[in-house]
């Protein structure tokens, strides 16, 4: 492991306490909601925020013992912080100059880096004359020009518009692949994290709640936050064989899956590894699941009993995508598995489909076609039958 860090930063009303490792050439994304402490963790690695306790070991050096300007790091800030009074070239040459290179040498290094990021033509431009994407590339070149062993990226794409983002993201990915040191990037955007990083570390309220590869995290979310990011309905329940009992949410409000299906939601992006594998997660064995009457009851604090494919005993998570949820105006005939009554809480557009938020024993999000909305007259307040295909529900130990 090239980087081993345990970062503890205490402030009034907030405590960050995370530990993680990054291998040479590996890109780790710290993913989390605003205020989770991701940026604090990054600043602590850079030496811009003091550690309350903990340690940072980079290739055998105790980084936490040396000041920011002596650490072998490169950092790309969220709004880049290119020096406005210097040209793009001099911005990139700034680091080499500080590391003792002569003016000529520093400029040679800088122009080589500008060429690598494809900005030789803009070497003489002041930052304010650069577009967002160009400024981002200059910031990356500036961070890499000092030959860092640890690259830190703070929301590297957050300041870009959606179109530029797409280009810059894939280009950034290419540059990160060519960097042999450790990379830690901070983002609240799961798409950025999954495209750019080899491994995700999810931070909430100053602690790590989940870590693993993109596929693992996308497939097996362990908190509501992660589930929302990867666009899954997630519940915690008790498994007995292939049935999982999920307690009714106390006073089923619209807090878990109903809010925040904003831009961070990934289900609209089909290209994401991990999400695409969800629908195939069930397998053909689902038909053997038990028929449960308990699940048929609507509301009333009863909870829902799910049939799942996997066999477990004890506390488990159950996850399924909104597309696995079907809605009916009347009680459907046939197998009444994973079926319950709910009330529509809200309806919104979601890509080509319509996302329906449902109250009931457990809050759930369903994706249905606009045609179904019209046919079933899905308006808020209307009671419906909800069913989830067992083959698309995925259970894993809690």
């Amino acid at each position: 492991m090239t980087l081993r860090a345990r970062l503890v930063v205490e402030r009034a009303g907030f405590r960050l306490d995370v530990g993680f490792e990054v291998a040479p050439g590996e890109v780790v994304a710290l993913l989390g909601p605003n205020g989770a402490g991701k940026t604090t963790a990054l600043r602590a690695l850079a030496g811009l925020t003091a550690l309350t306790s903990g340690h940072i070991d980079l290739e055998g050096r105790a980084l936490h013992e040396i000041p920011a300007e002596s650490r072998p790091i490169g950092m790309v800030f969220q709004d880049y912080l290119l020096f406005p009074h210097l040209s793009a070239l001099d911005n990139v040459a700034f680091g080499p100059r500080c590391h003792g290179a002569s003016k000529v040498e520093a400029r040679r290094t800088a122009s080589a880096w500008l060429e690598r990021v494809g900005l030789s033509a803009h070497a003489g431009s002041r930052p304010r004359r650069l577009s967002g994407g160009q400024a981002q590339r200059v910031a990356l070149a500036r961070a890499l020009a000092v030959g860092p062993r640890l690259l830190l990226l703070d929301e590297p794409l957050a300041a870009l518009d959606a179109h530029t983002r797409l280009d810059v993201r894939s280009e950034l990915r290419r540059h990160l692949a060519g960097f042999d040191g450790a990379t830690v990037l901070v983002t609240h955007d799961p798409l950025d994290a999954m495209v750019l990083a080899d491994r995700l570390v999810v931070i909430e309220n100053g602690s790590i709640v989940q870590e693993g590869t993109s596929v693992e995290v996308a497939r097996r979310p362990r908190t509501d936050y992660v589930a929302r990011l990867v666009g899954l309905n997630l519940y915690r329940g008790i498994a007995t064989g292939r049935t999982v009992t999920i307690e009714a949410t106390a006073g089923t409000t619209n807090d878990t899956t109903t809010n925040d299906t904003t831009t961070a939601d990934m289900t609209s992006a089909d290209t994401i590894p991990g999400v695409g594998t969800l629908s195939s997660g069930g397998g053909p064995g689902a038909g053997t699941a038990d028929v449960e009457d308990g699940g048929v009851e609507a509301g009333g604090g009863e909870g829902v009993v799910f049939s799942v494919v996997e066999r477990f005993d004890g506390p488990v998570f159950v996850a399924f995508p909104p597309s696995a949820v079907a809605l009916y105006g009347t009680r459907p005939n046939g197998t009444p598995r994973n079926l319950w009554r709910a009330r529509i809480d809200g309806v919104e557009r979601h890509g080509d489909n319509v996302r329906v938020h449902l109250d009931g024993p457990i809050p759930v999000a369903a994706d249905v076609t606009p045609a179904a909305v019209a046919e079933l007259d899905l308006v808020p307040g209307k009671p419906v039958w909800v069913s989830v295909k067992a083959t698309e529900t995925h259970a894993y130990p809690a």
Partner: protein
Amino acid sequence: MVPAVAGLVFLVLPLAGLLVRAPWSTLAGRLAEPQVLEALRLSLVTASLATLFCLLLGVPLAWMLARTSFPGRRVVRALVTVPLVLPPVVGGVALLLVLGRRGLVGQWLESAFGFSLPFTTAGVVLAEAFVAMPFLVISVEGALRAADQRFEEAAATLGASRWTAFRRVTLPLVAPGITAGAVLCWARALGEFGATITFAGNFPGRTQTMPLAVYLALETEPEAAIVLSLVLLAVSVIVLASLRDRWVSGP
């Protein structure tokens, strides 16, 4: 409306009067008088030296006020601004008490170096700097506060020491603020009267600056006073013009 117009007239009329009564025909000749030139030269030199003195001490002081926190920072800040509101004559008396021949520090200077400040050109510079320094400090402090401190952090991640970051990043960023502060400081030093005459006296060629010369000339040769005043007015207008982007263009 009426009070507003009255206010405007009140501010502009005296200046207009100065222009109307100016002896335009003899202006060139009077300007060339050795006494006038001497006073003008002395004024320009002392005001510039005072500004330099203020820059050397005022910029670090402004940096300390803007970027560090220490107990009593608010008190220090208030103390720095005292000369702004203090009658300059009081400043002159205070300087005399400290740096005068029998003053707290002056006594020691005299015995150690055989050196005395009052009634010298150096005394003029000190008196002007004392009165003008707050203008510079406040202007630079404001600029430093407005400058994004994270640029210094970015410089640190690139390997810049605190001093390098200040020199190569912060200073260029706040340069307009420093320039404005220096111009303001210089203009104030140029017009300084009270502290100068109290601390440095009124010796032609040595401590008699333009404002002092104006005052003296008013009793003996009113026309000369008008000419000298015109020169000072012209300087003020030039200063204002050079700062127009910051001060004159309102919202």
